[in-house]
């Protein structure tokens, strides 16, 4: 048995019991991890119509069979549950070290059931599992919590996944942060964790993941290092966000709630500006030589910045300074990636890089998804601009585009559900339903999930992703075989492995005699399982549609007609082996994917 341990940990918070499931080789080869595990367990354990924030929902932490192997890109894990933001299949991926640490502790996944009476955290020390009191951690931000847990347990190598105050306050787009600067951001998994009063999962593992062919895997790892300039240079130098000027030039940049495709000020807030003004270093995920994660550090005063540059970074990096003396940004929380620069910046009409970095840092330490938060603010600001929301509605708080300091204040109001923040904490679709008045016209959600910062009018490849991703407005092209497979096995989408290399990684880790056709089937299986869950929860073809905003043209791109969207949807249904009219997986497809048992839970 290589790549996995055949051990799934089930934790019931209601009665504080744990049990170990050993599902066998066939289970791992069939589902692989990530979405496959999550959809399987959601169908099996969550009753139809369950309240996402109630005791019947489960929360699944799911690395894949590759996660934890010593090869670049193998630091991924997914978190899934029924989403409190969409009411459907909820799932989000994260990088960093936590998922690999869980594997190194001897666990392939964690399924959390029930609700704790009082705040707790889970401590996994290799095979030992313990629920510990978290009353002293409740209400605290992520940096404080991680420091407290490491001190309490006495091991600085412990990895922590946790919620911030936003998750405790059931903000419907609350995230789960791990390693402080990585987040499973999308679909509100942090709110589910908060509803269970599970503050954190601390993990320490000391066993290397077993490999079928270590020399073969190391050869692939060396390929990444030796081709860095050719294959990963931009990620290595900038992370994401270095292409924003190109996107704007092409007229595809989300600006002012997706109404414009370009902004003259993009260059003030892109990853190049980040590098030049506030970035102190790049850092990596588990076992990855690409090192695509920005770390920024900003001080309020020039003197403090100079001192930090000399003492912390030994003169090798220049700490940024806020010329207005407003904000300090803590390097423990990493730095903004493209989605955050766009969602908290350009789409809100902002060119204030310091304030954008502050909002991003706050989202990390308070525990919120920057995409949904930014898009919800953009929706609210357009409502305010058009008089649909007034100062009477907002308690006197203006919701204005171009107001960077206002956004910083709103981030905190949402996390703590203060004032208008309570409405916005529901996410834009629920907020629009609550206030009505035509505000639905300004939504940028699919299935209730705010779309990411890639305009499908500009990028054809995003159309199927947004229309058909089981999570909703998801930009990660999770509808495709390549990304679908990587999600399940636990391999980063940013690594430039071709299909043969992905196959080779899977073979060298697991020893499986796997074929390209089987990999396609694995991805189809995961997508079909998630589809079955969504259908069971009441989603259908009518939900596979872009919001009205995207029927409008951009200056450089045509709007997307209903007919065009219908064609994309039908073609995809047929390609997946689902009914071309309804999107219901056919009996033949269920049989071919060997999903009869799972489908029995979908009725």
């Amino acid at each position, binding site marked *: 048995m290589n790549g996995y341990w055949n051990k799934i940990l089930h934790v019931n918070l209601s009665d504080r019991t744990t049990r170990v499931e050993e599902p066998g080789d066939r289970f791992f080869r069939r589902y692989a991890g990530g979405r496959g595990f999550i959809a399987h367990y959601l169908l099996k354990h969550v009753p139809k119509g369950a309240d996402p924030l109630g005791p019947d929902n489960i929360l699944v932490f799911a690395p894949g069979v590759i996660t934890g192997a010593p090869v670049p890109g193998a630091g991924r894990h997914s978190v899934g549950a029924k989403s409190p933001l969409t009411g459907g299949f909820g799932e989000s991926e994260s990088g960093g070290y936590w998922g690999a640490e869980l594997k190194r502790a001897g666990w392939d996944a964690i399924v959390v059931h029930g609700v704790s009476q009082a705040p707790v955290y889970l401590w996994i020390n290799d095979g030992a599992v313990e629920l510990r009191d978290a009353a002293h951690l409740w209400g605290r931000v992520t940096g404080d919590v991680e420091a407290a847990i490491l001190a309490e347990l006495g091991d600085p190598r412990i990895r922590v996944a946790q919620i911030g105050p936003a998750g405790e306050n059931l903000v419907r787009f609350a995230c789960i942060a791990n390693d402080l600067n990585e987040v499973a951001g999308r679909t509100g998994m942090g709110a589910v964790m908060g509803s269970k009063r599970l503050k954190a999962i601390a993990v320490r593992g000391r066993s290397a993941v077993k490999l079928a062919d270590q020399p073969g895997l190391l050869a692939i790892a060396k390929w990444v290092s030796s081709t860095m300039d050719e294959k990963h*240079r*931009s990620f290595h130098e900038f992370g994401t966000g270095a*292409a924003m000027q190109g996107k704007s*030039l092409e007229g595809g940049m989300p600006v002012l709630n997706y109404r414009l495709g370009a902004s003259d000020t993009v260059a003030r807030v892109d990853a190049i500006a980040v590098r030049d003004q506030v970035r102190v270093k790049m850092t990596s995920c588990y076992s990855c030589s690409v090192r695509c994660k920005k770390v920024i550090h900003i001080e309020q005063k020039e003197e403090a910045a100079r001192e930090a540059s000399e003492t912390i970074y030994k003169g090798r990096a220049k700490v940024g300074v806020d010329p207005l003396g407003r904000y300090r940004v803590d390097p423990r929380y990493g730095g903004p990636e*493209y*989605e*955050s620069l766009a969602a908290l910046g350009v789409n809100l009409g902002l060119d204030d890089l310091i304030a954008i970095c502050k909002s991003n840092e706050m989202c990390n330490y308070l525990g919120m998804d920057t995409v949904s938060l930014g898009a919800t603010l953009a929706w609210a600001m357009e409502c305010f601009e058009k008089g649909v929301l007034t100062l009477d509605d907002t308690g006197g708080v203006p919701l204005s585009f171009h107001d960077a300091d206002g956004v910083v204040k709103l981030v905190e109001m949402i996390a703590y559900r203060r004032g208008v923040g309570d409405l916005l904490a529901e996410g834009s679709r629920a907020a629009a339903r609550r206030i009505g008045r035509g505000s639905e016209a300004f939504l940028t959600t699919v299935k209730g999930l705010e779309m990411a910062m890639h305009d499908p009018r500009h990028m054809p490849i995003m159309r199927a992703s947004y229309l058909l991703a089981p999570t909703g407005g998801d930009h990660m092209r999770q509808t495709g075989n390549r990304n679908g497979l990587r999600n399940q096995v636990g391999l980063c989408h*940013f690594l430039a492995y071709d299909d043969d290399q992905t196959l080779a990684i899977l073979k060298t880790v697991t020893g499986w005699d796997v074929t390209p056709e089987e990999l396609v089937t694995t991805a189809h299986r995961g997508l079909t399982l998630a589809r079955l869950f969504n259908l069971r929860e009441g989603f259908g073809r009518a939900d596979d549609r872009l919001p009205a905003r995207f029927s409008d043209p951009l200056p450089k791109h045509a709007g997307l007609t209903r007919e065009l969207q219908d064609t994309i949807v039908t073609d995809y249904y047929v390609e997946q082996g689902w009914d071309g009219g309804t999107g219901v997986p056919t009996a033949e497809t269920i049989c071919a994917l060997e999903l009869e048992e799972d489908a029995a839970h979908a009725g």
Partner: protein
Amino acid sequence: MTTVTVTFFADLRRFLPRGADGPQRYTVREGATLADLLAAIGVGPDAELTAAVDGELARPDTPLRDGADVMLLSPMEGG
């Protein structure tokens, strides 16, 4: 001859000369187009990129003037 300044963004930076950073100067024949410049840099005709000349979106047949600023950008990325 026509000398232009080329800035490589994001993934297009893989076409920077080894060890180089920042804008690069290239000299092409008078009357050369963007396609000629790309060929001189070594960017294949099927490369996915967005190009701008003096701040305006450019096509392969866009002519280059002496002193032009050329931007080579990728419009695609995750995040």
